[in-house]
């Protein structure tokens, strides 16, 4: 059965943890991008929906002002969202998202290279 659930951005969406399909944390929601029908610019008074979750630099522009080129912002398409609860759960895995490049860079260039960095702490003592 399909119906509508009312949510408020600040209350239910912004700053919520984003988890990927495996339950791994991706980022917290820093901002939401609005789009019009067919992906056009969102316009006042006309039909508008959430196009994407923005993460990363948009937190700093929200906190300290200024702007980053919209096309440069790491984003997660709203169509990848599966559930909205105490966290926002995606239907894709975080490896498939380019929003997480800092984590991947540190993993490949620093943490993964220190001996034991890929050791599973639960496997043994």
């Amino acid at each position: 059965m399909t119906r509508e659930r009312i949510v408020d951005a600040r209350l239910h969406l912004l700053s919520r943890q984003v988890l990927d399909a495996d339950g791994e944390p991706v980022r917290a929601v820093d901002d939401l991008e609005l789009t019009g029908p067919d992906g056009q610019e969102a316009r006042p008074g006309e039909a508008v929906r959430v196009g994407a979750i923005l993460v990363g630099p948009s937190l700093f522009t929200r906190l300290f002002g200024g702007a980053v080129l919209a096309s440069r912002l790491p984003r997660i398409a709203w169509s990848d969202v599966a559930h909205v609860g105490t966290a926002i759960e995606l239907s894709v895995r975080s490896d498939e998202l380019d929003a997480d490049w800092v984590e991947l860079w540190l993993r490949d260039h620093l943490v993964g290279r220190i001996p034991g960095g890929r050791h599973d702490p639960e496997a043994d003592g």
Partner: protein
Amino acid sequence: MKKVMGAALGILTAIGGFVDIGDLVTNAVVGSRFGLSLAWVVAVGVVGICLFASMAGRVAAVSGRATFEIVRERLGPRVAGANVVASFAITLLTLTAEIGGIALALHLASSVEPRLWIPVAGLAVWLVLWRVKFEVMENVAGLMGLLLVGFAVALFLLGPDWGELLRQAVPPSPPGTEHAATYWYYAVALFGAAMTPYEVFFFSSGAVEERWTAKDLATNRINVLIGFPLGGLLSLSIAACAAVVLLPAGIEVSALSQIVLPVAQAGGPLLLAVVIVGIVAATFGAALETALSSGYSVAQYLGWSWGKFRRPAHAARFHVTMILAVLLGVGILMTSVDPVMVTEMSVVFSAVALPLTYVPILVVANDPQYMGRYVNGRFVNALGTVYLVIVVAAALAAVPLMIATGAGS
């Protein structure tokens, strides 16, 4: 049988994990200057940490969200950002104090100067965080920290005048030689030492990492409700030892070496050795918890993957944050700052920062959208409101008292 063992283990680690360098130093300083006239503050602090930890654990277990995810979501990115910066700074200060405590305790054991032990202690902390299984780490540190029970043994061996100790404690009668402002300054410090925020970050993050069930929640509540008060008794026995031996001699504690002298007097080298091992274990365990908490706070605010349960490569930014925190702590100590002074600062600022995390947790524990039927009951809420007042009052009074008394001197 296995169940009983498991429950006992949980309680024992909670006792051993309760006392850290902050409790050790603050209780000994207070005992040597005020006798047991501030014992009531330890009681207030212990009830407070039981309330706060069990509430944070319940919120984390039911919602699956740890403290700083909730802090950000409730306060918005701006206020929560300031909050996370303050909490990180205080956790870092506490981490610094704990690493310093390890080095001072090893100095007592070996005569090798602390400056040489500090990098060793930092490296050891990192290696355990990097490599050792969470459960092993928690249990070993907690059980060995239990050796601090040597302070209680020492108190009995000293054979003090129990009636006199009780008279100091109830009703509280501060010695006439101290100013009222100094008395209240140490009351705030003692409260901050008992109710350190990092214990709560650690506890609630553990609830998320271990994916607690209703059963786990019940067990952990019992561990806290029994373990923390017993840990509080341990704190009081440290204060009482100082009150019995050091206070009459006019000794004011300013170094870790003075804290263990009553133990030596009561129990000789053997008990002394036991207590020194206990101090190393307790400060080491607390260093692990504070290092983890520094990673938890930043990672949860920014939504990074975090946790001791993941391979380090799968929580890369979290591990990098912890490495930086340990390096910073070691760096601060290498400037030859006095670790005992760092400890005193850390407990006072813990009291200042407490409302920043206490209030959001109290609010969310009442939110049915998060908690379903696990919202706070009426009794917990009444207690929660009483502590809201205490926590805010202590936070507001801390800095003015610190300035007025010249940090208690």
